C-alpha cells in the first residue's frame, strides 16, 4: 500500500473540522506529519480569514467602520494639517507592497487628546491630535502611519470579523450571478454587515489586536519606512515614548499588548539601515503642528 495513503485520514480530518489541528509526530514517506499540519493549518487559516472579502467589500466595511469611529470622535477639520498628513501617508503607501486599494488611502486627524491611531479595512486611517503632539518630527509621524498601513495590508482589521458572518453571507448570496436583492435578503445582508462592523470596531476601539498582529505591523512598518526614505529609528523612538506613558492602552499604535519593550526588542534586529532625519522634513512638520 502506498504509504502516503495513510495521511489521507488526517487530511480529511483537518479539512472537515476546519480548525487548527495537531497531528501525532510521525514521518511517512519522507514527509513529516508536522509539515503537513503546518501547511494545512496555514491554508485553512487563510480560508477562514480572507474568505471571499473582495476589495470592494473591504471598502464598504471600512467606510462604515470609519463612520462608527466618528460617532465617538470628531474630525479635526484643519485642511492644511489634514493635507499634510495625507502627503506623508501617500508617500508611505506608494512605497508599500500594495499602493493601490479599492478606494485609495485617506488620512484624517481626530480632535482628541487621546494618544492613538486607527486603520479601517478600506483604507481610511485616523490619527489623534494627542498622537501628533507627542511626535517630535515627520519621521515619527510616518512611523505611526506606516504601522497603520501595515494593519490594512496584512488584513488584520478584516480578519477580526467572525467566521459566522461570512458563512451567513455566503449562504445568502450563493453562487449565482448578480441580481437585485429582495427586501428580505437585503435585511439579512445588512444584519450581517452590522455585525461585521461591530466585530471590527470592537477590535479597533475596544480590545485591540493580538500580540502577533502588532509585532507583524511593526515589522512591516520598518520596511515601508525604509523604502520611503524615512528613518527606521523613528518607530523605536515612538515605541519608547509609548512605554513611558502612564496610562496603558491596548488599541492602535499605542498598544501595550504586547508590552512596548517586547515590540522594541523584536524590532532591534530588523532596524538596520537607520537613515537620517532630514531637517527639511522636521521644519515643515513643526510648521504644520502649530495647527495641531
Amino acid at each position, binding site marked *: 500500500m502506498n504509504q502516503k495513503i495513510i495521511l489521507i485520514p488526517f487530511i480529511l480530518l483537518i479539512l472537515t473540522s476546519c480548525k487548527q489541528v495537531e497531528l501525532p509526530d510521525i514521518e511517512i514517506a519522507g514527509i513529516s506529519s508536522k509539515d503537513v499540519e503546518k501547511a494545512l493549518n496555514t491554508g485553512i487559516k487563510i480560508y477562514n480569514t480572507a474568505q471571499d472579502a*473582495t476589495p470592494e467589500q473591504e471598502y464598504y466595511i471600512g*467606510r462604515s467602520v470609519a*463612520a462608527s469611529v*466618528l460617532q465617538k470622535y470628531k474630525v479635526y477639520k484643519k485642511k492644511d494639517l489634514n493635507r499634510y498628513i*495625507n502627503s506623508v501617508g501617500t508617500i508611505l503607501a506608494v*512605497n508599500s507592497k500594495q499602493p493601490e486599494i479599492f478606494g485609495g488611502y485617506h488620512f484624517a486627524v481626530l480632535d482628541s487628546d487621546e494618544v492613538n491611531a486607527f486603520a479601517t479595512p478600506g483604507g481610511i486611517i485616523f490619527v489623534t491630535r494627542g498622537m501628533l503632539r507627542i511626535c517630535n518630527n515627520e519621521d515619527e509621524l510616518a512611523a505611526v502611519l506606516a504601522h497603520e498601513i501595515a494593519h490594512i495590508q496584512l488584513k488584520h482589521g478584516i480578519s477580526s470579523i467572525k467566521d459566522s458572518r461570512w458563512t451567513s453571507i455566503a449562504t445568502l448570496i450563493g453562487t449565482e450571478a*448578480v441580481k437585485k436583492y429582495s427586501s428580505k435578503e437585503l*435585511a439579512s445582508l*445588512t444584519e450581517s454587515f452590522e455585525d461585521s462592523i461591530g466585530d471590527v470596531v470592537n477590535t479597533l476601539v475596544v480590545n485591540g489586536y493580538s500580540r502577533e498582529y502588532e509585532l507583524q505591523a511593526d515589522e512591516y512598518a520598518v520596511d515601508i519606512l525604509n523604502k520611503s526614505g524615512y528613518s527606521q529609528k523613528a518607530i523605536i523612538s515612538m515605541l519608547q515614548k509609548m512605554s513611558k506613558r502612564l496610562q496603558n492602552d491596548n488599541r492602535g499604535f499605542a498598544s501595550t499588548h504586547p508590552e512596548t519593550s517586547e515590540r522594541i526588542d523584536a524590532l532591534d534586529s530588523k532596524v538596520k539601515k537607520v537613515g537620517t532625519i532630514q531637517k527639511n522634513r522636521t521644519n515643515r512638520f513643526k510648521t504644520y503642528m502649530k495647527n495641531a
Partner: protein
Amino acid sequence: MNVAKVFLAIALIIPALLSAETLSVQVKKSFLRSKPSFLGKTVVKVVYAQQVEKKSSKNDWYLVKSLKSGKSGWIHSSALSTKAIVLSSSDKLEDSSVTQGEILMAGKGFNKEVEQEYKKQNSSMNFSQIDAIEKDYSVSRTDLIKFANNGKLNI
C-alpha cells in the same frame, strides 16, 4: 524557403499570443502612466472591472493596454486582478475564455445598496464626513512629487 519563413513566423507569434494575459482593474479608479512609477504622467484613466492586456512587466509594474481605450501605459500590479470582474449579470465579458471559477462578481455581498440600508437604520452616522475624508484632503501628483523632493523621500 517560404515554408521555413512561415514556421519562423509561427514560432515567433505563438509565444506572444500565449503571453498576452487579460487582467481586470480591481480598484475604483486608477491610471495608466507614462513610466513604471507614480512619478509617471497619467496616460488614461481606468475604472473598476475594466480589462487590460498585459504586455510586459518591471518589478511590480505592468505595461498594459486598455481594452476600452486602446491606450497603453504602466500600472502597479496591486490595482489588477487575474479574475474577470463582472459588474452585472447582463455584462458580456470581453474575454470569453474565462471560466466561472475565475470570475469575481462585483457588487456581491456588502455593497453600496447594503451601505444605504445600514445608513437608513443608523441615521446618527455621518457618512457625508466619510465622503469628505475621501475627497477633500487628497494630494495631486505634482504636489506629492514636490513634497517628496523637499523631504528627500522616494516615490
